[in-house]
């Protein structure tokens, strides 16, 4: 599992690297784009995802100690938190659509763009925003599928104190996806100079 996660580190690492390059090239436009994002969504989602990581860790703990009922409860809570995350993410996408901030399809922002900002480069920022968050959300959806499978297996009483590797491995995956968001949140939402200028 760790070897798979290593490939995932390289995959997301490449995206972050690309983002860093273009951010360095078009810093002013990327900072404008970053300030348009709504911190409340990003921060709430960070907290939700950290909470889901806690319940996932507790699910693994329940599996290790052979507590089937607790395992199932924690799996369900983790899935609910994962769906809350995706719900908030979806709401945020709807906001972006209504604010004409979807590159390619509907991009004509009016608010929050200081004079002299290079719009195509703000659009590029939103390309990165959508691609990186969508790939992350896809990982979340896959994670929900894995947890559903675990829940069914736990219901069928397939796990025991000596056999819980699937739960543990799914936990690793879930925490990894959490870590990706831990980096996405500050890099996309926070470092665009949100303090008052001048």
């Amino acid at each position, binding site marked *: 599992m760790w070897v798979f996660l290593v490939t995932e580190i390289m995959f997301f690492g490449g995206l972050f690297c690309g983002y860093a390059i273009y951010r360095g*090239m078009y810093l002013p436009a990327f900072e404008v784009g970053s300030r348009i994002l709504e911190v409340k969504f990003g921060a709430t989602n960070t907290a939700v995802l950290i909470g889901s*990581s*806690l319940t996932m860790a507790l699910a693994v703990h329940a599996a290790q100690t052979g507590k089937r009922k607790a395992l199932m409860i924690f799996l369900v809570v983790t899935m609910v938190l994962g769906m809350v995350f995706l719900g908030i993410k979806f709401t945020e996408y709807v906001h972006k659509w209504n604010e004409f901030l979807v590159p390619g399809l509907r991009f004509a922002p009016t608010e929050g763009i200081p004079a002299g900002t290079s719009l195509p480069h703000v659009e590029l920022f939103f390309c990165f925003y959508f691609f990186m968050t969508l790939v992350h959300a896809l990982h979340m959806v896959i994670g929900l599928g894995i947890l559903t499978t675990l829940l069914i297996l736990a219901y069928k009483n397939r796990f025991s*104190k000596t056999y819980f590797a699937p739960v543990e491995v799914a936990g690793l995956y879930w925490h990894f996806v959490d870590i990706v968001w*831990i980096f996405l949140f500050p890099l996309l939402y926070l470092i665009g*100079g*949100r303090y008052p200028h001048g």
Partner: protein
Amino acid sequence: MAEHAEHIVPVKTYVIIFLSLLFLTGLTTGVAYIDLGPFNTVAALAIAVIKMLLVILFFMHVKYSPKLTKLVIVAAFFWLALLLTFTMADEFTRNWSPIPNNWGPSISAPAPRMQ
């Protein structure tokens, strides 16, 4: 991955890590509203790295994992560091030389990308 003589992390540890992660999320959000110049990015990245380490070491049990697992992870991050370091070293040192060259835009006529 399936060694069964595993260290079982107490629930209390998980809760402490969870609270620390929430605190750090609040901290990174708060710091973003204070003008620290270039250190805003440094602070955001430093806090993110601390949060990552907490998740990896405790939630992902790496603190209690065999050395081979640790080696695989360190190797992965080393590789990622190579990618980032050399890309950034290239990006941020372009057009530093005042000597005009013949293979690209000179500093007297900066490339559009440097605007």
